């Protein structure tokens, strides 16, 4: 078993979503993460990220950022446990982010 980082990119389109729809999206996420947890795959629910920040290139080059387009913006992350990278990728299939046009980047966390 190894750990994998899910990086959630994009899918935070906020225009014109009704309160009801936003609540439904939240509940879909909770249900999906809850299911991963119930199956013993969720090591950490993770955390959301603000969409503001700074990009530091060196001591004198600190700018407002991140510069990625909003469709690539990292909105948050979770950590899952799975047998293989393939399995970890497969587990992300139910993520509600896809319905909002976002994507999940699955990255193996280096072991010993």
């Amino acid at each position, binding site marked *: 078993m190894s750990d994998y980082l899910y990086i959630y990119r994009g899918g935070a389109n906020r225009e014109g979503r009704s309160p009801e729809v*936003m609540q439904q999206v939240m509940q879909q996420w909770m249900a999906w*993460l809850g299911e991963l947890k119930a199956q013993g795959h969720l090591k950490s629910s993770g955390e959301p990220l603000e969409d503001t920040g700074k990009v530091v290139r060196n001591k004198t080059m600190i700018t407002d950022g991140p510069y990625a387009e909003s469709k690539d913006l990292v909105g948050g992350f*979770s950590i899952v446990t799975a047998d293989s990278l393939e399995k970890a990728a497969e587990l992300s299939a139910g993520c509600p982010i896809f319905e909002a046009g976002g994507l999940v980047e699955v990255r193996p966390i280096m072991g010993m």
Partner: protein
Amino acid sequence: MDPTDHLFRHEAGRMVAALTRIFGVHNLALAEDVVQDAFCRALETWKYRGIPENPAGWLMKTAKNRAMDVIRRERNVRTFSPDLGDLLSSEWTLAPAVAEAFEAHSIQDDELRMMFSCCHPRLPDTAQVALILNVCCGFSVKEIASAFLVSNSAMEKRIERAKGVFVKSERLFQLDGAEDFSERLSSVQQAIYLLFNEGYHGASAISSIRTDFCFEALRLGELLLRHRLASTPSSYALNALMCLNAARLPGRVDQCGHLTALGEQDRSLWDRRLITLGLSYLEESAAGTQLSPFHLEAGIASVHARAKRIEDTNWGEIVSLYELLLSVQDSPIVELNRAIAISQLEGSERGLQEIRAIADRERLMSYPFYFAALGELEVKSGRPEQAAAQFESAVGLARNAAEREFLSRRLVECRKSISCRNTV
């Protein structure tokens, strides 16, 4: 029901109301942005960390903090509420003033002020209802458009125009009993009544949205009862009629989601709590000398609610209530309902006579249940061919799949009885 069901939508109206009080009516869009932002934060954090212990309080606190940020950032470039202006300009008074606006009792008054402000005399009824649904009840333009079966862009225009009037009204309507209070109160009652009816009889096929409209109307109606000046006998009557009719909602569709006629409903499904509440409101509404159409409609609903079986219905009382209603509110639909009640009392031929005598009958020609009523009475009079023809017209006018299904079922039954008779 899970207490967090529709939480966002239910809190939206309360938050927009408190924020509009702080920011001023001209900043309605800013208030809406702050609310949207609070929901975004809730969505993003709760999905990882779970729903907090007091979710409504969490949302309010987030909106409150955002409001203070906005005021600090923009108080030199923007004017805020004329009522709170001075309090917001000093750091000493800003936090307490904003906190006060978010106290439960102030929010309740803010919601009422919003609702009264949405019923601006320059707005037609339909625009008032759309604006209330959007601003006070948290429904999006798209959701409202689909319920009223109009295009998104048409509804967007209607709501934008209504917001334009709202924003120019300078300040929220004051609830201190100024001279235009009772006139405005009756517009508000009318808007709540229309909202309820849209849910109860409306054209939309999506029954969940329709039930939501009914319960929003009940919620707004109860706000009136909690205010000293707004809790008039007619406000009680309005709430009585909504409770007593809403009590029957669980019986209106069967397990397959099909509409059921009043006579076929399983009355054990009717909501006893709402009936009891409705009857107690009806009692309260009898204080004073005023007899509004709401009183009469509530009276009619109470006769149905009290009948354990359709056979137990006191049709005589219903007929006389409809007659009283006609004397204060001339409407072909009321006349149609009166004729149906008469047929229950004096037989189908009398009912048909009464329907044919309705003066304004042309106005019912696009109403499917006019033809359905004729069809039912023809069935009872033993003329299935005529009945089938009426049901055919009714099916052609059905406004959604549920109505079409209901009316087609009656048509099929008629045709069956015709073919049975012909084969005998």
